[in-house]
């Protein structure tokens, strides 16, 4: 037995000596070609939405449906077609580099015919989105509170509730405006009742939304009302150039926590004010510990997404000369969607530091816009949906120099639309009938396979 052990040991050692280097070379993407010896290859990872799509590379069908990895591809361009019945085939020439992986993550296939549904049989003139679980839409038929309807965007059924009951004391009051905060389920409605301005804080999470009159906490008409997305106690009001904190639970006012303020933002238990000279000051909720701050890029983007008044300061800080209309952070780290009147771009600030003087890198992926008013990340940051001059357009983030622009629907030029990646649905008012409708943009909730670290981060962000 000891001799046998020795013999087998040396055989295994020899096997290891031969197989191990080959295995490592294989892992690094090297394959043996008959004539040229070792060749550096790359691969393409394909996942599609909807899943189980057929993948054809250079005219040959891959063994597996998407998601799949196609290995041993020689460097250069390869024709990739992704095909699912009922959808327009996705076709592109995809570059492959030796030792590198080209990831076609969650390629969103466009249906041959968009699946749409009209949700109401009445016409509306207002559409305002609210976050929450489920998210909701405020839709208005006319100019009074009696015309306001709250649509809860449940998974399958959209429930319709009138915002105020028939016996409400605000019955007949005229709606003058709304204050909402990105990612917050709450909103403040500005109404005019008996020629008196009233501001109602509304918590729509209950079956019958709860409205609380906060008018007496406001000293005159506020320029801005803002709060942290999940905070149901503290509201910050910019009145003139003064920032006041309103505690709507204890009905207390904390006046003048910040002065000379042009715009207001709230983030991470701190209040941010834009000063006339363009600088940003932040302090705590009590107005203490005021400091002039240079926020980190990601914080600045959150502030600018929360309040467009911060956009110019954000652009200046990032060294971007564009006259941005909006910015929205992506799920993916260090990525934001930015749009101007004519352009849509992707801001990658992964290399940007708070003290960095270099301009951030913006990759403009669409430049033929006419009047881009809204833009959304779609399909976990893999696509972009934008409202441009009465058209809803869908764009791929990664286009390999071959942009794919798809028209989704037409809307009124000024009509707001709302898209949520949670359901993959776009809500809009149809131009002719002004009825609330949705289109299923993303057929399935996308799964993010790569990289795992990033997907963990996304979960954290979603949480």
């Amino acid at each position, binding site marked *: *037995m*000891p001799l*046998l*052990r020795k013999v*087998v*040991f040396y055989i*295994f050692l020899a*096997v*290891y000596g031969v*197989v*191990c280097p080959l*295995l*490592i070379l*294989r*892992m*690094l*993407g090297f394959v043996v070609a008959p004539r040229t010896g070792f060749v550096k*290859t*790359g*691969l393409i*990872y394909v996942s599609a939405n909807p899943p189980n799509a057929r993948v054809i590379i250079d005219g040959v069908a891959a063994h597996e449906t998407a998601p799949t*990895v196609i*290995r041993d591809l020689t460097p250069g361009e390869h024709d990739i077609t992704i095909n699912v019945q009922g959808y327009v085939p996705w076709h592109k020439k995809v570059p492959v580099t030796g*030792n*590198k*992986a*080209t*990831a076609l993550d969650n390629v969103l296939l466009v249906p041959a015919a968009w699946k749409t549904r009209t949700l109401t049989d009445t016409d509306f003139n207002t559409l305002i989105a609210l976050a929450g679980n489920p998210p909701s839409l405020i839709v208005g038929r006319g100019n009074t509170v009696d015309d306001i309807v709250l649509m809860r965007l449940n998974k399958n059924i959209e429930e319709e509730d009138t915002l105020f009951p028939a016996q409400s004391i605000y019955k007949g009051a005229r709606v003058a405006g709304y204050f909402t905060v990105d990612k917050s389920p709450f909103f403040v409605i500005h109404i005019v009742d008996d020629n008196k301005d009233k501001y109602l804080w509304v918590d729509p999470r209950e079956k019958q939304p709860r409205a609380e009159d906060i008018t007496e906490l406001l000293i005159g008409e506020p320029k801005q009302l803002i709060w942290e997305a999940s905070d149901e106690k503290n509201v910050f009001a910019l009145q003139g150039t003064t920032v006041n904190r309103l505690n709507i639970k204890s009905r207390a006012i904390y006046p003048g926590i910040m002065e000379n303020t042009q715009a207001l933002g709230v983030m991470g238990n701190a209040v941010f004010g834009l000063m006339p000279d363009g600088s940003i000051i932040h302090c705590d909720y009590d107005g203490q510990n005021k400091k002039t701050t240079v926020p980190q890029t990601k914080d600045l983007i959150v502030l600018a997404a929360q309040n467009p008044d911060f956009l110019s300061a954000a652009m200046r800080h990032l060294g971007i000369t564009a006259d941005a209309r909006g910015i929205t952070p992506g799920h993916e780290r260090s990525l934001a969607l930015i749009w101007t009147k004519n352009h849509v771009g992707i801001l990658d600030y*992964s290399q940007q530091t708070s003290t960095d003087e270099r301009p951030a890198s913006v990759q403009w992926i669409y430049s033929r816009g006419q009047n881009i008013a809204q833009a959304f990340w779609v399909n976990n940051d893999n696509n972009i949906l934008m409202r441009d001059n009465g058209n809803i357009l869908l764009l791929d983030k990664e286009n390999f120099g071959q942009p794919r622009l798809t028209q989704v629907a037409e809307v009124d030029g000024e009509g707001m639309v709302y898209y949520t990646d949670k359901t993959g649905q776009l809500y809009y008012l149809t131009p002719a009938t002004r009825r609330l409708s949705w289109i299923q943009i993303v057929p399935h909730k996308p799964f993010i396979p*790569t*990289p*795992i*670290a*990033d997907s963990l981060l996304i979960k954290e962000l979603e949480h």
Partner: protein
Amino acid sequence: MDFHYSKQHLTPGEARLQRRLEILPGAVSWASLVTLVLLSIFLPFTAAIFIVAFYLCWLLRLLYMTLFLVLSTIRLDIEKKTDWRTRIAGIDALTAHNGQTPPASKDILHLVIFPVVKEGADIIGPALEAVARQNFPTRQIMVIFALEERAESTVKQDVSAVTQKYAAHFKDCFTVMHPSGIPGEAKVKGANVTWAAKAAAERLRQNNIPFEHVIVSCFDADTVVDQNYFACLTCHFMVEPDRLRASFQPIPVFHNNIWHVPGFARVIETGSSFCQLVEATNPEKLVTFSSHSMSFQALVEVGYWPVDMISDDSAIFWKCYIHYGGKYRVVPMYTTVSMDVASSDTWWRTVKSVYKQKRRWAWGVENFPLVMRGFLRSKEIPLYQKIRHGFKLFEGHLSWATWAFILSIIGWLPVVFARKEFAASVVYYNIPEIANTIFNLGFLCLAICIVLSMALLPKANVRFSRLKKAGLALEWLLVPVSMVFLSALPALDAQTRLMMGRYLEFWVTDKRRTPPPP
């Protein structure tokens, strides 16, 4: 060679060397794990290359071990049918004819020592009964219960009762009480059995029995020997040319309470038996483990078991190996000794019990600094043997503490911590594919282990349905988890304690023969 096999009473220079060598295994294990984690985060390509090389090495080693596990199991099965008494008679006839050694089998005396501290009659009774029912003249067996003075009175009564019950079967059967608090001794089994062996030596001298005719078997209190054990041992002792410089290692199995312990414990202990079966095929590197036998003369010459070490079972081999300048070996015996799986009254306590038992086994790493010091001092042991044994001892403990972590957790870290650059490389996509292929091949070995484990189970005790057997097979799927938490982690714990100088105290394993209450 006159070498003091202990970490006590050292010169300052020896103490420094001892301490450094104590630090080494734990430091290397931790350095390996931490380096791999850091590489996975900061240099994922380098980590990936190492991990793939490691996976392949693991697979080949697994295949290699599985091959010899199968061969060893086959041999165990074949040797079960051996008529050892006939063989002994043959050797007796042969030696009588040419007048040469070995001693006649009738002159060989077996000294059996059972150390007892908290085991009751339910444990020691079956152990002694197995010795009494040997397929060998039991009048050639002397049994000693090495009883700790600190043992509870019920234990003492049980020992007394069992001794009285079986005394008539043996040449002699008596109890030696080991006093507590002897200077220089730790609360370890080695101190207890050494005290008993010294008492036995005195009695042998009084009876004019030459030590070279005595084979001492030091068994754990729960050891139930195969009925051919002493016949097999006698035969091996007689045919071994250098019998006075050899230990005799049976195959330990853990069948005494196998049906009454949770699945993870069953799997872990079966794995331990498999390890010994594989080791048995390599006598050149075999080290004594748990219950085993050896020449009493060698035991006396080396100064008995260490009285301040927990791992007395392997320490005695190293002590002899160094004492005899490398001219000492372990002879594998394809016969079984059955012991208890560590078990307690609740599932969680059993987990803790198994963990502590494995940590105690892994505390065998305490031999490393002593063996290395012995090797450095010894001029008789060939350099090649020093390197071979030293490397195996060190590598064995290193792989015990690290491999399961690398396979189950660290191997996936490059993918988990992947940044953009790594995630955009072919390596990121190829590592999981290669790992899956290797693990699938590894599962083949696991399947073989499942089959062998079913074959090794004590058939007489099987009173369970096929469904239960299928459940037993499925228990093997727990291997990845139990290997991390009940094998690698206790080993790393033991090495870390040695590294930090927090020496382990002897802890007597909980043993139960009856199923825990529902």
